[in-house]
């Protein structure tokens, strides 16, 4: 099947689109709730609940509003990616040593400068770990996209299941598993690369 490659690329793009949207929505949201802590509990509860809705049910429900097609799939993926991204960004930023925040403020950083120079860089490894989890989850869930008229590697898997053709199932399942592993691996590498030497785990930064 020559178009397996095309399907794989499409699958990856759809997953990335879902996670990308979740980043655009989730990171500002997480930063917002670090400033207005009263909103934090509520927001976390909502993202938690969203996460527990079975993916088939969420797809079906969204389909009613958004119709058949990739847009419904991408929005579903975004919703599932929201939790790891919001949670990790939030805990990453709020978990920062109080001393760093006080030092930054006391030296005359504005809130924005504090965020850009200290909070985001220090929380970045944790945020990256959230993105990694989101991406791997999204790749898995995207195989269901075919049920609501979306593309990606779901098509050969489901068709194979209907005609009981295991080689057809595997032609979709194996590339899906492979890109999940590659993403996991690649993002782990990236996570290391964006962690400054001063924050590497071997000798945790004392502050």
């Amino acid at each position, binding site marked *: 099947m020559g178009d397996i490659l095309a399907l794989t690329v499409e699958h990856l793009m759809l997953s990335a689109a879902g996670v990308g949207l979740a980043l655009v929505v989730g990171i500002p949201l997480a930063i917002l709730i670090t400033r207005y802590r009263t909103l934090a509990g509520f927001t976390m509860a909502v993202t938690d609940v969203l996460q527990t809705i079975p993916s088939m049910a969420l797809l079906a429900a969204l389909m009613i509003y958004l119709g058949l097609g990739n847009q419904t799939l991408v929005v579903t993926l975004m919703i599932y990616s929201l939790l790891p991204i919001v949670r990790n960004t939030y805990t990453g930023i709020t978990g920062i040593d109080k001393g760093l925040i006080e030092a930054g403020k006391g030296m005359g950083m504005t809130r924005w400068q504090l965020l850009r120079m200290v909070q985001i860089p220090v929380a970045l490894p944790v945020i990256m770990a959230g993105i990694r989890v989101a991406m791997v989850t999204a790749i898995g869930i995207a195989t269901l996209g075919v049920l609501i008229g979306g593309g990606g590697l779901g098509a050969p898997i489901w068709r194979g299941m209907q005609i009981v053709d295991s080689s057809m199932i595997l032609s979709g399942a194996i590339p899906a598993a492979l890109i999940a592993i590659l993403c996991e691996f690649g993002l782990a590498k990236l996570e290391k690369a964006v962690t400054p030497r001063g*924050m590497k785990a071997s000798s945790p930064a004392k502050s």
Partner: protein
Amino acid sequence: MVKFKNVVKAYENHVAVKNLNLEIPEGELVVLIGPSGCGKTTTLKMVNRLIEPTSGSIFIRDRNVKDLNPVALRREIGYVIQQIGLFPNMTIEQNIDVVPRLLGWPAEKRKRRVYELLEMVGMDPEIYAHRYPNELSGGQQQRIGVLRALAAEPPLILMDEPFGALDPIARESLQDELKNLHSRLNITTIFVTHDMDEALKLADRVVVMNQGEVVQVATPETLLRNPANDFVASFIGKNRLNGDSLQSVVEIMLPDPVTVHPQMGLAEGLALMKRKKVDTVLVVDEQRRLLGSVAVETLDREHKRARTIGEIMNQDPPLTTIRSQASAKEAFDLIIGEKLKYLPVLDENDVLVGLVTRNSMVSALASAVWGDVGE
């Protein structure tokens, strides 16, 4: 430079600072000291508006801080926090550089400043500028914390127990360095500590606080000589009490003078004095309470007539003694004023603890003038 006027900080169920009035002249190093929770940090943070006072005002060079933009204000004030708070994601250079960067200094000027500061504390910039905080020792990190506060040449710096977490040796040397920097740069400094030794060593003036109130503001000398009340006295500590800027009499006495018991025979006493090369011995009982003294001449004169030390010990004029709580200066005054050769030091139970001689006095003076020259 800094003026607190009727400053109060009250929390819902606790008044952290009660009506603080204090003026700090330009260039002075003031140390705030007091037990935990007495409001030192609160006082400090009200200066750079990390905490807003409930009432009263604070002026920096006659500007009410309330009228200043807090961000701009903080960039003008160096700030060293207790936990050091170096940014782990930045190199040493970037850490020192923060305020100059915020102020928009050009890159070369910033780099020059970083190198100059590192050299000032004896850390080779070529080695350290590009390291990360976790690649430095605790003492080095503290130094960077101080340099970071000095970077933009602020006219005022606030330091909250900056050396708290260090071992005594690193602490001493950083104190020396700070003292040195301060006398060179003359930056007005408010320094918080709860270590009296540190306060006495560094301060131009010490502000003793307790439960949100200022108890005494004084130079280290005055504080030692005239503690305002029992709280200050106990905070200074017993062994420093009444001390001149020099020290207590205990520190200048010979701790182990030659003593004899009254039952000792004269010949034995004479031999002992020859052996120890002294011309007087102190006579003590079993509990080492002082009974009297015998000079070598008396011994010589009487050794035909008497058998034991006890029989001849009271022939000399009554001894002048001093209590061990007294200061070295009182001992000096006595020895010089009464032309004494020596002065036994007794504790509150009349037990002999030491002896000040003209010799020990001179060597104590010498070490005060020229540093420790060995006794």
